[in-house]
């Protein structure tokens, strides 16, 4: 319970937001991957955030950082596009494509980077405060 724990709180947020950006980047990169390692089209992934309070805090007063509870597959249906010339087209000429929503992923990416920046700012402020506290009474 001190300024040093701000480092772990903001640090955990940086880690979680960068993982969110990673997942978003993977979704965007694979927006057109009609076949993955398992032979199926790529499915979009989303991170789930969860509060991560350090142990030993009184009940009802827990505060803490954030962690990624898991990466879940997007359950929305896969897109089907008509392209008879595609090598993976089925009998009717349809190809099953990933369910990545590129616009939503781009927005997600921007939101993650803004949250990342906010936490970097928190970290910088905490560092400045600690430096000032360390030089208390000098000069």
């Amino acid at each position, binding site marked *: *319970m*001190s*300024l040093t*724990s*701000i480092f772990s*709180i*903001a640090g*955990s*947020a940086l880690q979680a*937001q960068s993982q*969110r950006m990673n997942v978003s980047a993977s979704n965007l990169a694979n927006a057109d991957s009609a076949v993955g390692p398992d032979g199926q089209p790529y499915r979009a992934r989303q991170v*789930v*955030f*969860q*509060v991560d309070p350090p142990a030993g805090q*009184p009940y*009802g*007063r827990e*505060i*803490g*950082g*954030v962690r990624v509870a898991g990466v879940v597959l997007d359950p929305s249906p896969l897109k089907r596009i008509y392209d008879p010339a595609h090598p993976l087209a089925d009998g009717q000429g349809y190809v099953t494509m990933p369910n990545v929503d590129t616009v939503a992923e781009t927005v997600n990416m921007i*939101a*993650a980077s803004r*949250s990342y920046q*906010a*936490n970097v*700012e*928190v970290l910088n*402020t*905490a560092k400045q*405060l600690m430096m*000032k*506290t360390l030089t*208390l*009474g000098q*000069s």
Partner: protein
Amino acid sequence: MLDRLNEDFRFYQQAIALRAQRQEVLSSNIANADTPQYKARDFDFQAAMRDALDARLRLPDTHLSLTSARHIPGQAVTPDPVALQYRLPYQPSVDGNTVDMDAERVRFADNTLHYQSSLQLLSGRIRSMMSAIQE
């Protein structure tokens, strides 16, 4: 004599400690700005400061003495001066999160400023004490 010094610095020490704690709570809010079902927390600095300085309110923690293995343990603890509360949501999101990033950042900056001014005041106090000692 050292007692007096201690008493003199206690106010600022308490203020800085509470400011640091509030800073932590606010940073937790900012860190969890995207966590579903997270509710923003904060506490009233003025009330916490008043409770912390008013020593009469703090009683020593009491335990029931147990004389048999079948007794139920009980204890009475005076609550901490800091009472964490939930912020009233101004524009809550659909996922149950009540963190308003702009408001949190404003409060964070405000708290930073107050922390620094408390440090500055304490610094001045130490300086005047030093000059009093050296004269």
